[in-house]
């Protein structure tokens, strides 16, 4: 359950103030499938970053599971990101020197989870994502679709309730993009809240709820 009320976010570009988000109100129930769309610079990514606790709003309140998290410190926000939110990026952001399995293991290392438990969970997740024969490969030995699958596996290994995907298919061909969308939707069907930011109208149409943003405001929400 995510509740945003009166969220504002401004950036300084040179010596000019640019409002990325203007007074945004948004409520997202657990298990929803949301596509955030809109032209470049409309504030989609900023919205996603604020929901994902990577950015702080200048004004407004953000309730995550009923808890006001705008005033939390760095350490507590990091813990929330670790346990409640998963990120998927357009450019995958896998650590190049680590194997697929090690990349998936990374959030659990940061969380200080016991190595034997980590091993089990990584093995189970790798099987579930159909990348078992690629576990020991490094990212540069994987195809784009495989990389994004590894990235999704990493995003959900801590069993978050919300998955934030910023243009998850933006860097993939049609076929592997379709596979990735299927994986994301499958996760959503199991109760994970899925919020994607996308330019792709086809991808947008698949979402249960479409939010269109223009100039830092929510223009339509259906």
């Amino acid at each position: 359950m995510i509740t945003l009320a009166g969220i504002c976010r401004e950036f300084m570009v040179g010596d000019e103030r640019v409002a990325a988000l203007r007074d945004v109100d948004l409520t997202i129930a657990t298990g929803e499938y949301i596509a955030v769309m809109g032209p470049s610079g409309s504030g989609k990514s900023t919205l996603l970053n604020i929901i994902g606790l990577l950015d702080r709003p200048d004004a407004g309140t953000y309730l995550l599971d009923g808890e006001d998290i705008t005033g939390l410190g760095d350490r507590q926000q990091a813990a929330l990101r670790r346990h409640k939110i998963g990120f998927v990026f357009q450019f995958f952001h896998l650590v190049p020197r680590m194997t697929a399995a090690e990349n998936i293991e990374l959030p659990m290392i940061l969380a200080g989870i016991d190595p034997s438990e980590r091993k089990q969970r990584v093995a189970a997740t790798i099987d579930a994502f159909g990348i078992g024969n690629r576990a020991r490969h490094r990212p540069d030995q994987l195809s784009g679709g495989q990389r994004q699958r590894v990235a999704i596996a990493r995003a959900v290994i801590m069993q978050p309730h919300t998955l934030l995907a910023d243009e998850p298919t933006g860097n993939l061909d049609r076929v592997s993009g379709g596979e990735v969308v299927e994986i994301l939707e499958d996760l959503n069907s199991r109760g994970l809240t899925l919020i994607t930011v996308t330019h792709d109208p086809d991808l947008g149409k698949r979402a249960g709820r479409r939010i269109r943003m223009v100039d830092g405001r929510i223009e339509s929400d259906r």
Partner: protein
Amino acid sequence: MLLRDLIRLSLGSLVDQRMRSFLTVLGIAVGIASVVLLTSIGEGVRRFMLSEFTQFGTNLVSINPGRTTTVGVSGAIINNIRPLSIADEEALRRIAGVIDTIAVVQGNAPVEWEKRSRHTTILGVGPTAAAVFKIDVARGRFLPVDDQRAPRAYVALGSTVATELFRETSPLGKIVRIGGERYRVIGIMESKGQMLGFDLDDAVYIPTVRAMSLFNLDSLMEIDLLYQAGLESRTVADQARRLLSARHGAEDFTITTQEEMLDVLGSVLNIITLSVGGLGAISLLVGGVGILTIMTIAVTERTPEVGLLRAIGAGRGQILLLFIGEAVVLAAIGGLCGLVIGAGGAWLLGALVPSLPTHTPWLFALYAELLAAAIGLLAGVLPARHAAGLDPIEALRAE
């Protein structure tokens, strides 16, 4: 985050940049190796010097005329220093615990045999000097026990003097002229080498009283007391001080115990070891700058990775820890390599050049390793702070 994971992650990124890590490790290794090697040499020299110094016998107290003090009136007006005499020596010999005494007079004079002549150190000593100073007699014997006030004209030659003057001829029983007077060679000393620049082999030993008349002296230059092992040097020195003060009416002499001399020498040599180690520390500093440079580059290169780590739940503290951990691991590996190279080098040096004494003090080695880790920590802090301070969104965007 578990410590073993931190170390594993650090090792992972260091192995990924093998060449670069190797060179950085090398920098620290050279620094630690030079610290270890130089302190090994310094410590070896210190031990060597101390053993050289004590090889002339321990349990010695030496007494010299005059006293180093500052008084209000010029010394010339109240110049009442009484010289040390043979009678003083005989009195000192009666102190309980004193085994022997040696009255010493020293000067330079030519020693001649046939057509050869050599200017050398003439030591006027008593018959027990060889035993007290631990100089063995190679051939013949040392000065005999004689009437102290009118000893016979015998001389014992240092090994250098003997070979220089006599070459292949045996000097025993030959008559040499010292300062014009005739002396019969009674013994040749074992080679003892130099001590603090003074060549004991390039010297001849004659009875004290004869040396006094040779150099036209009416007093002794030094009296050495040999006391029983196990006695406190301070006790012996105090007794000697009281006795001589009573005889002279004032304390117009200086007593030096060997412990005091060793203390002074030891502290001087400690400083040498330290300063030599300090020279090595400079190269260690350079190694530290190497780590700083490489970590700064690493943070810049891995900025997107920092953003990713933040996104998947790393706090600023964890980012800080990751990069500092990497720097410390780098430095610690360098330190270990340096320790092995340094200690191995010292051992090799000791084996190849036996005349150069080396000794690796393991406590110093431990300090050096800790120092390396500390340098890694210091060098890592700045880049790691930079990494931790990055804005995660900006970092993710950087490519």
